């Protein structure tokens, strides 16, 4: 193999599994260390800069970071249940224990008093739009956000139930953004052309995927009064329009919306609430922890049942029938659900909530306004810049590439803001600077580091819950209580500090084997060089996880190479402590993503002018 080029900013970024997996690339180990140090406000602001909604995401994020977390892999075969660090709930810790006044002051310091004369409009006040506003307002842009609802927040507040996310948390974080001088107005946009005529320099569409998919099976019309579309129903509960539901409720669908529907039902009158899904339990789209939460509240999840019809009597819904199916896989591994041949199963119910997916819908964008759509009804966009076929129109969040989640919407918002900033500075949108990267030695003394390199053996800590009897009675009472300070500290100790990299300098190595002998995970080998496939087998411990890179040095004096499998490295720094020559060093890698503002601009125009 060729020696690893650690100058490539992606190499070490990939080693920080959580940060790499996060769409917004939040520097997770950095804020976890700040939590451990009790610096909650600083930890909050690290998050705020990157993901904009730490308190909201700390309760509701889809957590792509956690399945990626190295801790889960290193605990394999030694912890009864290997689990990642509770990254998401530690994020909530930063919001819970920060100094509110201090944070408010520091955020407000970014407020620009002088306008740069450019006007931006964001359509829809969800996470994508609010991120664009947050990134652009401090640069002097005049940002206006429109939403059909009287509150800003979009799906964060209309679709996510209050028992998962209290109103105060939403208001606090939405207001941080609005207080930067962003103006929010309730206005239902009915015509894109109209907005285009209003003289905005750029238009950002963050209107989400607002249409819940319906289920067109026999009995749908007759039972319509008691059949509700999941997201509309949740929104209606959020706004207080709906305050009760029948005693027997069937929720159709296996995603997180279905989980929110069933848990909400249980709190406003539903006694016999069940979730019924087409697929198998394991293939459900809902996050595992959301399924667990539903089951914990006594809601059964029944699988492999395909809805066949609604049963009505005298125009009133009385139940549903389902076909029993099983999963069959073809040669290519493609799954299809085929009937088991057993008789259909019927369930009685008073209400049905349909949560079988969401769709994009842009009835307010005129066909002839210049914005092109593809055959799936999604806008034609540049994947990197989020620019539509009309150059000053951008899409982000669910409205760009279909339904995803909050953290993706935030990531889209950041990128769209960069595009808008570049466009309005007459720059090429496609020339986007790579993230800024720093790599700094953490050495303080012979065996002292500026990070805590002792590895905690603790298993993952559980977030305490409020009493289930009380929470099931009150749709607004938050179920999760969050970590207390002591538990948060202990959970923070489980983080392996994967951003503190093992950096190897081949010229200094005397091949004494000290690092090989001390490495608890057998990550380091000195072997004859070979092609990657061969090398992976020849290491002290086989490197079977192909998603994790091998770190390979140049040839050493014996013509062997140092090959390190990044997969299960604990970042404990013992290799560097045992290295007599400093060939190993522990260096903190920090990737600063490129946000709108001076840092994202290449100044190619200025250069042209100078020339």
């Amino acid at each position, binding site marked *: 193999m060729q020696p690893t080029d650690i100058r490539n900013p992606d190499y070490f970024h990939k080693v920080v599994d959580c940060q790499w997996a996060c769409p917004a690339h939040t520097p997770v180990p950095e804020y976890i260390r700040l939590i451990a140090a009790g610096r909650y406000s600083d930890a909050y602001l690290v998050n705020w800069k990157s993901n904009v909604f730490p308190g909201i995401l700390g309760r509701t994020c889809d957590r792509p970071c956690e399945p990626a977390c190295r801790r889960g892999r290193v605990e394999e075969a030694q912890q009864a249940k290997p689990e990642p660090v509770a990254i998401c709930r530690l994020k909530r810790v930063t919001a819970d224990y920060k100094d509110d006044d201090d944070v408010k002051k520091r955020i407000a310091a970014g407020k620009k008093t002088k306008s740069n004369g450019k006007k931006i409009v964001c359509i829809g006040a969800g996470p994508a739009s609010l991120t664009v506003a947050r990134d652009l307002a401090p640069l002097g842009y005049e940002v206006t956000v429109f939403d059909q609802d009287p509150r800003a927040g979009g799906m964060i507040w209309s679709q996510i139930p209050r028992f998962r996310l209290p109103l105060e948390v939403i208001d606090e974080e939405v207001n941080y953004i609005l207080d930067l001088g962003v103006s929010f107005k309730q206005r239902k946009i009915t015509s894109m052309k109209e907005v285009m005529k209003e003289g905005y320099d750029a238009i950002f569409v963050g209107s989400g995927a607002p249409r819940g998919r319906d289920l067109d099976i026999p009995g749908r019309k007759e039972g319509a009064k008691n059949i509700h579309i999941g997201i509309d129903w949740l929104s209606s509960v959020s706004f207080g329009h709906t305050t009760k539901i029948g005693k027997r409720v069937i929720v159709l669908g296996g995603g997180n919306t279905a989980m929110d529907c069933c848990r909400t039902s249980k709190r406003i009158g539903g006694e016999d609430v069940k979730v019924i899904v087409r697929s198998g339990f394991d293939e459900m789209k809902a996050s595992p922890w959301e399924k667990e939460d539903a089951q914990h509240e006594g809601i059964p999840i029944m699988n492999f049942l395909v809805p066949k019809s609604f049963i009505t009597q005298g125009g009133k819904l009385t139940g549903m029938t389902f076909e029993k199916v099983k999963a069959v896989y073809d040669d290519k591994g493609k799954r299809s659900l085929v009937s088991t041949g057993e008789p259909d199963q019927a369930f009685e119910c008073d209400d049905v909530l349909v949560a079988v997916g969401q769709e994009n819908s842009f009835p307010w964008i005129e066909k002839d306004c210049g914005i092109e759509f593809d055959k799936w009804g999604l806008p034609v966009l540049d994947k990197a810049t989020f620019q539509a076929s009309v150059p000053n129109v951008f899409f982000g969040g669910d409205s760009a590439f279909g339904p995803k989640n909050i953290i993706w919407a935030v990531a889209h918002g950041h990128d769209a803001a960069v595009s808008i900033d570049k466009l309005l500075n007459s720059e090429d949108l496609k020339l986007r600077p790579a993230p800024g990267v720093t790599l700094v030695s953490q050495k303080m003394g012979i065996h002292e580091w500026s990070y805590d390199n002792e590895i905690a053996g603790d298993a993952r800590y559980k977030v305490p819950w409020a009493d289930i009897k009380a929470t099931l009675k009150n749709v607004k009472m938050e179920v999760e209580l969050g970590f207390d300070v002591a538990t948060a500290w202990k959970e923070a100790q489980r983080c392996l500090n994967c951003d503190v990299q093992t950096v190897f300098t081949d010229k200094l190595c005397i*091949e004494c084997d000290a690092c090989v002998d001390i490495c608890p995970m057998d990550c380091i080998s000195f072997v004859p060089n070979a092609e990657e496939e061969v090398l992976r087998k020849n290491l002290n411990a086989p490197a079977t996880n192909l998603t994790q890179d091998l770190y390979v040095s140049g040839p050493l004096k014996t013509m062997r190479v140092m090959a390190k499998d990044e997969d299960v490295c604990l970042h404990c720094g013992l290799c560097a*402590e045992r290295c007599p020559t400093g060939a190993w060093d522990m260096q903190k890698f920090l990737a600063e993503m490129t946000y709108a503002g001076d840092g994202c601009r290449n100044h190619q125009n200025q250069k042209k002018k100078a020339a």
Partner: protein
Amino acid sequence: MTFLAKPKLHHPTLPKNKLGFTRRDYEGKVSTLCAGCGHDSISAALIQAFWELDIQPHRVAKMSGIGCSSKTPDYFLGQSHGFNTVHGRMPSVLTGANLANRDLIYLGVSGDGDSASIGLGQFAHVMRRGVNMTYILENNGVYGLTKGQFSATADKGSKAKKGSINADSAIDTVSLALLMGATFVARSFSGDKHQLVPLVKAAIAHQGAAFIDVISPCVAFNNHAGSTKSYEYIREHNEAVNRLDFWPTREAITVDYSAGGVIEVPTHDGSILKLRKLHEDYDPSDKINASAMIASAAVKGEVLTGLLYVAPDAEDLHAHLNTYETAFNTLGEKELCPGSAMLEKINAGLR
């Protein structure tokens, strides 16, 4: 060294031996030696060897004297017996222990100061008595604990870190062991575990005095240009006479060797030593030839490594003394004090 204990976490695929232990279960406390010390690599090789041999740690007694090397038994086999003796007196304490309990596996760990200076006499006698043990000499050519004076194994003409040249002749512990009657003599290098681990395994299986001189560079005081015990010097001058493969039983041999160039040496316990010849005319069962080869290599400036001599028909101290087969420490009062009638009988036999 490091202040932290090595984390308990290990690689998810770390294999277990027949006893259900991983290699990590044979570790000891965290080393307090200097970073890069060859002794730590030897500890790692010992851990590997004992793990591979499926030896129950509590069947092992580790004995050592004084010095950097003699600290190391604390850093491996944390579940074994140990005795840190007076300087240079490990062989006599070990001999005593071996006489009292012949059932344990004895590992003596010593250094060049402990064995070639203050303990030279003890070293000579434990070899000639044929005490059943594995004697590991961690040889770095300097007194590390007292900041780098030449030891008795430093080569004549080699240079100290501060520049002085050694004028004294070196004691070649391998030649001395051969001369004194050791029945298993080897030399290896801490930086070559592929060579060292099988040698340690074979030495443990050997029923007699097995001696391994392991050159182990002192990174702090003897790893500079002009030193003949540095990583670089040993790598350049290492002349391996053979490659050893150790097979615990005859049935376990599965590797096909090309004919010729391989010597099989059976041992008492049924294990097999397979030696791949690297030197055309080197025969490790020929003691006189071995001595001559070691001497001529030294003249050429080569460091001869590998299994230098092994006597397949070795006997140990217990055989020499014709002692009782049961370990003395398990004998009861009745066996140990057979009574005045027996004493009379013995006395009568001596009159």
